[in-house]
């Protein structure tokens, strides 16, 4: 049972296409496990359909349809075949994330750089957004840290608790700039999550908790 969902504003940004790449990835990955958000995004996309139907029209040159008809028989670019995903990868990574990674869990290049968790960077955008997978050991306390930007957290497996509640598999946490939290990882399974940040994440003494902050 999923209890924590993305805020409406973020679902709307996903539906309209305004979401940056990392935010869109984490929202899509949540939706793949959450029926209520899937339905909400469907409704928000329906508003886009109606707006398109009622939209102001632009001038369409006479050459456009014949040019298009010519192209109908062009062979479509064949997408690269998906690799064979093993059972653990299928269990942990919903389809949008698997497609984004294009590899199995075991092939990811995990690093432990700050002592609190293992991480692998899975996306960087020119807007300074960074997507990471984090693997936290059971019972590991992550020291209190604050966010200069936003942090979006999707629990892929296991769970944690913080000041805002309990987060289990599928739950979506949102931290706004300036908010501090002190997550405590579950004792039994640890916590495996997809995190997107758009600014530095700092311990209270000012050191960076996520390595190599490329936006600095």
């Amino acid at each position, binding site marked *: 049972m999923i209890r924590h969902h993305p805020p409406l504003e973020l679902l709307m940004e996903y539906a309209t296409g305004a979401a940056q790449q990392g935010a869109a990835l984490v929202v*899509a990955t949540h939706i793949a496990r959450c029926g209520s958000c899937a339905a909400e995004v469907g409704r928000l996309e329906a508003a886009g359909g109606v707006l398109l139907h009622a939209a102001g029209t632009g001038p369409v040159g006479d050459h456009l349809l014949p040019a298009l008809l010519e192209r109908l028989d062009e062979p479509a670019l064949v997408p690269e075949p998906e690799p064979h995903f093993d059972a653990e990868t299928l269990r942990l990574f919903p389809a949008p994330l698997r497609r984004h990674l294009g590899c199995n869990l075991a092939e990811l290049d995990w690093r432990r750089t700050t002592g609190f968790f293992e991480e692998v960077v899975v996306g960087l955008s020119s807007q300074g957004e960074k997507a990471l997978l984090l693997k936290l050991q059971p019972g590991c306390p992550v020291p209190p840290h604050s966010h200069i930007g936003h942090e979006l957290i999707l629990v892929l497996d296991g769970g944690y608790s913080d000041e805002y509640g309990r987060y289990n598999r599928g739950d979506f946490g949102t931290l706004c700039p300036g908010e501090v939290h002190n997550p405590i990882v579950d004792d039994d399974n640890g916590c495996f999550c997809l995190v997107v940040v758009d600014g530095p994440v700092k311990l209270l003494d000012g050191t960076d908790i996520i390595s190599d902050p490329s936006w600095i």
Partner: protein
Amino acid sequence: MTNDQLRSLIEAIAAHRDRGAFAELFHHFAPRLMGFGLRRGADAATAEELVQETMLAVWRKAGTFDATRATVSTWIFTIVRNKRIDMLRRQTYPEVDLEEAAEIPSGERPADGDLANSQDEVALQDAMRTLPAEQLEVLQKAYFEDKTHRAIADEMKLPLGTVKSRIRLALARLRLLLPEGQV
């Protein structure tokens, strides 16, 4: 054209690569897609390319259209949204295919036909026409110009809270908000 008419054109393309049906669909959507592209600030050549890429995807993906999940206009909106991101940002927008979402328990899946039939779409079109101008304006900026709430607030010199509340009011009026008031 009604959704049922549009749907039969898509089905004709899917079933027997019907070029006549494609031309009809083009006459309906190309001017709207062109308007959509121009509104986003694209020049005419880029907007034309967006129309071409979108209509080509409609031709190629007609067999995947699922009339129980979306109306034709909604389906084409999601295609042009993704193509616009491909073209302008050179990125592939992460898509969700509910067929692959095996983890969603069947009881929690979006109901088939939820907002996907013609009657609902007509009701939604009617409700859209009754929106106050200031609410419609922010919705259009969100959907046509893919602007975040923050970007809309900055551009319109409005407090962020005002933009958020106009969007919420509009969505509530269109009955597009989660029923249980989640979030």
